[in-house]
């Protein structure tokens, strides 16, 4: 059972689920200052769940995200760093909307940081 909790704020939401060894997080709305603290808590719980449940992948779907600020990018970066440096490791897949070119652009540095662990599809 996941400890990551769903989040519903006025302008931001997170839905969490687990499917075939993958922890799935769907982010919606605006990932800005107002979303920062709940996203940080969510990713910390996700990390714990990955380890406790022996999951090997985290999938983060940002297709319904309208904006991603640098503070929230930093939180995703921190998750990539944890996947790189702690054991057991896990891969991270980001789902982006090809019609929203900013999404892949915003995540490109994370893929460049850890090309063996990060996929942007």
């Amino acid at each position, binding site marked *: 059972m996941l400890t990551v909790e769903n989040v519903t704020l006025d302008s931001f939401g997170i839905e969490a689920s687990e499917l075939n060894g993958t922890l799935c997080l769907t982010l919606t709305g605006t990932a*800005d200052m107002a979303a920062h603290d709940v996203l940080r808590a969510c990713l910390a719980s996700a990390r714990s769940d990955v380890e406790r449940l022996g999951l090997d992948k985290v999938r983060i779907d940002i297709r319904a995200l309208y904006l991603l600020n640098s*503070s929230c990018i*930093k939180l995703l*970066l921190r998750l990539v*760093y944890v996947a790189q440096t702690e054991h057991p490791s896990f891969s991270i897949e980001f789902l982006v909307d090809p019609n929203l*070119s900013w999404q892949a*652009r915003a995540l490109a*540095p994370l893929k460049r*940081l850890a090309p063996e662990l990060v996929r942007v599809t």
Partner: protein
Amino acid sequence: MTEPLHTAQLAVTMTAVSNTRLVSALSTLVSEFCRGLVSDPSVVSRFHMAAQELAENLVKYSVGRDVKLDATLTGTRERAELRLRATNRSTRAQLDQVERCLAALIKAQDPEAHYDRLIREAAPREHGSGLGLARLRAEGELNVDYSIEGDQLTISVHASVEPRKGFPHVDR
């Protein structure tokens, strides 16, 4: 032949604002203003990102009561430029810090490599980002300028753009 553009400007001054809702509202307003002037959604999204980062900085680092954010389209139809400008007052320590960041950012010959270096440095840190300004140039592909006069900091980002057909009659 160059066709002069009607200058379009949106200027917002806020007083004593530290509300995250208003930051998002402000960046959305700037984004919609840009969308009215430029049809390319990629350009609009780059300026939306910049407006958000600049507006957040205004709230985080201002010591004075008034902060300003404006967006201006100038030039000719063939050589138009869209510019965002954020102005606030700050402490000497914060001004020194941001000036170091901005000077390094502007001096960097490869903005993407500079951003990647900041990403690597930021990754192990639990708190703080330090990525917002570098992101403007690397990800946003925007030119960055700044000025400091006394305790007043102005950060500008700008890029050449293709104005929407029919501008200034943007409601067509």
